[in-house]
């Protein structure tokens, strides 16, 4: 009886998680829909450094893959994962610098959403990646997001401070998320990687749906 009750409880919890996941995924799809995307320079009153630091955090499209990247890196173990702490912020800074000299590449929106889907899929599959592949993903994501953030600057923005803010927040966010994910995976219980993989599958689902919407909207246009 107790076992049955426990099973019923677990089943209920799983159903609740699934429902929450579906609702969350739907909400995220709406949040990430390209048609709704718009520039949103955050005025933090603390100067352009803090404006740059807050800018990526206001956008699910950027925060979600950063989180997925950190979890994916954590799955590779600390020895491989720690390279992301180096590579990702550098790529963000480089991407931001590129936005000052290059026009927006036409493939950037599709590439961004594709990377969200790919990173989510890799987490869902708990893929063991060679270091080079992980770095390519981290650098690709960093370059794209750095570019997108850089492109949001206006004429009066102090570019150096703004891009420094973007870089520092990218470093802090990914490092903290990576530390948390590694600590979480080190805990007792086989359910821990499964929980992270489930989260990855939601990210992948969101990425795929948004990619679909994006392609459809382009086809209709």
């Amino acid at each position, binding site marked *: 009886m107790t076992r049955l009750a426990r099973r019923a409880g677990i089943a209920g919890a799983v159903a609740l998680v699934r429902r929450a996941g579906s609702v969350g995924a739907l909400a995220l799809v709406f949040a990430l829909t390209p048609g709704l995307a718009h520039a949103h320079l955050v005025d933090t009153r*603390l*100067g352009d450094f803090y404006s740059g630091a807050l800018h990526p955090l206001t956008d699910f499209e950027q925060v979600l893959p950063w989180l997925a990247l950190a979890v994916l890196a954590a799955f590779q173990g*600390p020895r491989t994962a*720690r390279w992301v702490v180096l590579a990702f912020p550098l790529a963000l800074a480089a991407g931001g610098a590129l936005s000052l000299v290059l026009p927006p590449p036409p493939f950037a929106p599709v590439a961004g959403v594709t990377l969200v889907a790919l990173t989510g899929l890799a987490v869902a599959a708990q893929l063991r990646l060679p270091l080079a592949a992980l770095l390519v993903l981290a650098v690709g994501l960093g370059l794209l997001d750095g570019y997108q953030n850089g492109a949001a600057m206006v004429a009066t923005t102090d570019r150096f401070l703004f891009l420094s803010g973007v870089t520092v927040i990218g470093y802090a966010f990914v*490092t903290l998320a990576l530390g948390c994910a590694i600590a979480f995976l080190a805990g007792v219980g086989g359910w821990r990687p499964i929980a992270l993989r489930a989260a990855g599958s939601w990210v992948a689902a969101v990425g795929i749906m948004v990619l679909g919407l994006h392609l459809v909207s382009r086809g209709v246009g």
Partner: protein
Amino acid sequence: MIALAERAPARRAFRSGLLAVLALFCALLLPSLAARAHEATMAVITLREIAPGRFIGQWTMPPADVTLQPIFPAHCQWNPPELVCGERGLTGRLSFMGLGSKQSVATIRVVPREGPAVVYTVSAAKPTMMVASEPGTNLAVWADLADTYVNLGIDHILRGIDHLLFVLGLIWIVKGGWRLVKTITAFTVGHSISLAAATFGWVGVPERPLNAAIALSIVFVGVEIVKLQRGEPGLTARYPWIVAFAFGLLHGLGFATALTALGIPQATLPIALLFFNVGVEIGQLMFVMAVLALMWAHRQAQALLPRWGAAIPAYVIGSVASFWFLTRI
């Protein structure tokens, strides 16, 4: 054995990479921040009452951003330099258009025909201020005052890279635990005392030598880090709370310059000081928490500096602070 041998070059490469990034970061970011530390970002407009409800306005400290404009209550008509508010007088909501990254604080100083002048400070954090006919008895005005000065305190500490760098140095030496709690508390007590003393005018130090001394305090912490890493624990490593308290007194005088520059009336000064200090503590706590969280995350990810490069952050802190010292004397 072979596995260990294979891991060593990877570890070395990682650590070298980490150091390279750190060096790049410091070379690019910190000197720039040095030049920007503590920019004057305040504008002051003075309104002199020439007849009941009629004022003449003049910028006594012009704004850095020319788009900055005062916004007066709806019943007032602002045709620069004249402001006509009629029988109701200058009461209601005051704000500024254009407060942001270039101008963080703007002040309206109202000089009535009779009685003392009243100063209203509007920050980008608290972009509006209620003006009541009797500010001393209106609770909403006091709440606005608290809101404004807490945010101003947070603004000041988060923009004050020199104060943050000193706190970072203390964290670096003390590492964590109760010793860090005591050290940060001592720093807080120290700067609260001198902030109050300077704000009330009991002590006064010229701004340039004060800022130079603050820079020197950071150089001192940098030297202390290096000494600790060489196995020679200095004063800060042995008695961190004493050093934190002593230099807290110095940094508090620096905090006070932000507050005294606003020209707050004596009647509202104690409450303004209290809330400004609360804001400074909130900002400081946010910074300490962020640094500790990042240190923890680095340990989890095993992303640590090699032993031979451990002194580099101390040299960076010392070099940047020395640069500040030279530019401030």
